[in-house]
Every structure is written in C-alpha cells, then in structure tokens.
C-alpha cells in the first residue's frame, strides 16, 4: 500500500494507514543505522535539494544524513547569501532549482503554506521540513516513533505538549498525528500562547502544568523563542520557567514515570531544567537518531511513488 500523496506537506488529513506505514518503514531504516556500513542504495541516481529559507542546523543535518544514507545526491541551499536575499521570489528560486533536474525538494520556510504553494508549481516531490507556524511533519513522526519505541504504543496514551502552541509547527503536527493514532492530547501553556478554537482539533487545553502531569504518559516540551516572545506573550523568562518549566521536582510530584521529549535545540533551565533534559526519562537523543530513520523512510516512500 503506497502513501496517498506524492508530497509530505503535513500530517493534517493523513490517514492512520499512511502514518503507520511511515512508522513501520522507519523501523527497517533504524536497523540500517546500526550497521557498520550505514548506507543503502535505494535513492541512487536521485537528486534531493534541501531548500532552507530559514535557519535550521538540526533538521537540515538530519535530512542531509538521511539522504546520503540512502545514496541520493544532495544539493544544499541556504537562504542567506543566496538570490533570495536579492528579492527573487520563491517561485523563481524553486523553478531554477528544478531546472537542474532535481527529483525531490525538502523545504523549510518561514511562511505557513509555502510548501503547499511549491508543490503546485514544481514537479518534484516536496517534503515540508517546517513551514511557519503550520506543520513540521517529520518532527512529529519522529516524536511518535520515539514514543512508540519507548512505550510500545500510541493508542490510548496521554501526551501533553507544553509551550507556545500558537506559534508551534511541532505542536500542530503532533496534534494531527497523535490524534489520528488514537492518543489523547492536552496542550498546556499560558493563555496567550494557546490559539483560538484549538479544542476543535480534539485536544484538551490546560493552563496549569501541575494539574495535568499526574495523568500524563508523555511530555513534549516545546522550545521557547526567547527573543521573540518575552514581554509580549509572557512577562519574563523567569516567570515562564517558574510556571511552565519542566523540572525534576515537578515531575517527581506528579508521582508517575513520564517520558520527556523536546524537539531541540534546548534552552536549558528555561522550558526544561538540565537535570530533566539529561535525566533517565528524557528520550531527547533517541529523537535525534530516530529522526534520521524517519526521514529515510519518508524519502524512500515518496521516491518510489511517481
């Protein structure tokens, strides 16, 4: 059963079968990553362009590694110092890259919906590596993979996402994916960071983290954008940390084992304390490894789709 779309733009509307297929396929690639030679040939002769219109070291490296592990030729593109800063439109940039006979495009962009637009104007498969505040599907897939690996299932788990839900593409993709896979999702954060009508997506809303922790299996802690948000969405970093920061004390008070995820990069002792990030319930480094396997699975499944 192939995927239903030839692009991965988001998890909104994706079927349970498709999510399952990606997660299951990633298991095979996860095994490849344990081999002495961590490289397999299925994308030999294919060219993948990584178009990152917004800075991102981790996601770009993870995609690049996944592409190379699949034997693809990799074309890197960063917005800084390129023609984009000279006012070229997304369409022109994309068409130019496609004119070089690129088979797949991985795109990170600051505007929500940019990859949807791209998928309408070029022929290549498009993979969304994060668009504005919309979606970051491979991040949510690797989060779900990591949860499943650790707890054996997704169905019936209670996952709490903490942080700036309004501006988080990680939150949205996780909500869409987790709910489709049968998990229960609570979003938690100050009211200024919870977007309107979010309950209509099937999630519960909570403003006091200590109230929800005693029933939570998994915590997904979002990164706080220090520069942007302090003073507008919450008064100060200190106050955010005191009311929403995930600390060991807070977790111990909850009285149960909670698996902790973070999409990185971490602001230590802001949204998560160092002893939690490095502690026994943190799966943050597994997320990084699984991210490569998930991206390999997505690239592989889309490449055999045309």
């Amino acid at each position: 059963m192939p995927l239903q779309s030839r692009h991965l733009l988001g998890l909104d509307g994706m079927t349970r079968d498709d999510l399952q297929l990606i997660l299951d396929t990633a298991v095979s690639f996860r095994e490849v990553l344990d081999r002495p030679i961590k490289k397999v040939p299925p994308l030999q002769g294919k060219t993948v362009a990584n178009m990152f219109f917004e800075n991102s070291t981790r996601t770009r490296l993870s995609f690049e590694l996944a592409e190379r592990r699949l034997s693809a030729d990799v074309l890197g593109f960063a917005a800084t110092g390129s023609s984009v800063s000279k006012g070229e439109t997304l369409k022109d940039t994309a068409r130019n890259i496609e004119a070089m006979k690129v088979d797949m495009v991985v795109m990170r962009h600051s505007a929500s919906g940019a990859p949807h637009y791209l998928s309408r104007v070029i022929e290549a498969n498009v993979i969304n590596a994060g668009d504005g505040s919309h979606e970051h599907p491979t991040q949510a897939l690797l989060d779900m993979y990591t949860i499943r690996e650790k707890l054996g299932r997704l169905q019936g788990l209670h996952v709490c996402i903490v942080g700036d839900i309004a501006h988080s593409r990680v939150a949205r993709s996780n909500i869409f994916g987790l709910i489709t896979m049968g998990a229960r999702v609570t979003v938690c954060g100050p009211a200024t960071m919870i977007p309107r009508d979010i309950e209509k997506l099937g999630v519960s809303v909570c403003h006091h983290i200590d109230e929800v922790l005693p029933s939570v299996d998994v915590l997904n802690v979002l990164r706080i954008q220090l520069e942007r948000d302090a003073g507008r969405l919450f008064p100060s970093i200190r106050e955010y940390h005191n009311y929403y920061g995930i600390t060991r004390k807070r977790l111990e008070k909850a009285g149960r084992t909670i698996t902790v995820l973070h999409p990185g990069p971490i602001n230590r002792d802001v949204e998560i304390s160092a002893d939690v990030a490095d502690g026994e319930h943190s799966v943050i480094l597994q997320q990084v490894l699984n991210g490569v396997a998930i991206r390999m699975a997505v690239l592989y499944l889309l490449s055999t789709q045309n």
Partner: protein
Amino acid sequence: MRRLKAQIIDQDGFDRTTIRLAHEILEKNKGAGNIVIVGIRTRGEFLAHRIARIIEEVEHTKLSIGSLDITLYRDDLLGKLEQPELKGTDILFDLNGKDVILIDDVLFTGRTIRAALDELIDLGRPRTIQLAVLIDRGHRQLPIRADYVGKNIPTSSQESIRVHVREVDGEDAVLLMHPEE
C-alpha cells in the same frame, strides 16, 4: 491468472531435497564450525530455517540464522509501480570471517542474488559466501551460479516456478505454472 502446468516436487521430494542440500553444505565446509545461515525474504527465509534445523540435528550444534530483505538493493526499485514493502533485514550476528550460506528458493536472472551479495558485503566481510537454492530454472542475466542446487528445471522464460512452503502456503511443493494468459 496463471494455471498450474505440473507439480515438480511433492512433499517427500521437498524433504529429500532439503536434506541433501544440508549434507552437501556440511561436506563442502567440513562441518558446521564456521558457517552461518542467511535466508532471503520471504520464501528463502523459511528454507534457511529448514536446512539449518537439519544441520543442527546432524551436528548437534546451534547455528546463527538471519534473514535478508533485499528491497533497498533492488535495481528495479524506482521503476516499480507498486510500492515495495520493507520487511527488514534481521541479522543479529557478526558476519566477519564467517562462511555465509545464502539461501533462496529459486535462482532465475541472478539479480536478487546480486542485491543480496551487495547487502551482505555492506554488513561485514565474510570469509566466503556460498549460494544454496531449491530450484535453478536458468535464464541468468548476470554471471552468478549456485554452489548447491536442489533441482535444475529447464523452463521457458514465460513460464514461472512457484515454491510453496508449509509456513506460508500450508504445503511444501514446487509448481510449474503456465505463462500468463
């Protein structure tokens, strides 16, 4: 739909053939001391377990058995209409310095074996790789031959050979099918 043309090997023949293959492997390698068994998914995996069990009984030893999913190494992967499902490679032992007995059900063009060899070599550096197949039906497209052959069956290239194994198909048998109609 393909129609059955003839049954080439029945249950008894199947058992005799696997027993013979096991003994040939032991003879050539002077015992089971350095061999590991790797079956190519799907049918080769079950054959590998059969042959391994016979060797283990004869030699009173325990063998390392693994299975190989060659999908990622196929040379027709990107041209296929259907999405090839990954079942995963499962080799939880070291191949370095071992005599690897690679097992598949039917040897035909040789392309599957080429893919399997590439994958094995990415997994380690065996001392030898030896190929055992239940059926060799000819029509090779690559310079590949089997070290152990259960039965040579000359076929036309339009015909097909279907191997049934108890674990999947409920019976052990080898069937020759008419060309597609």
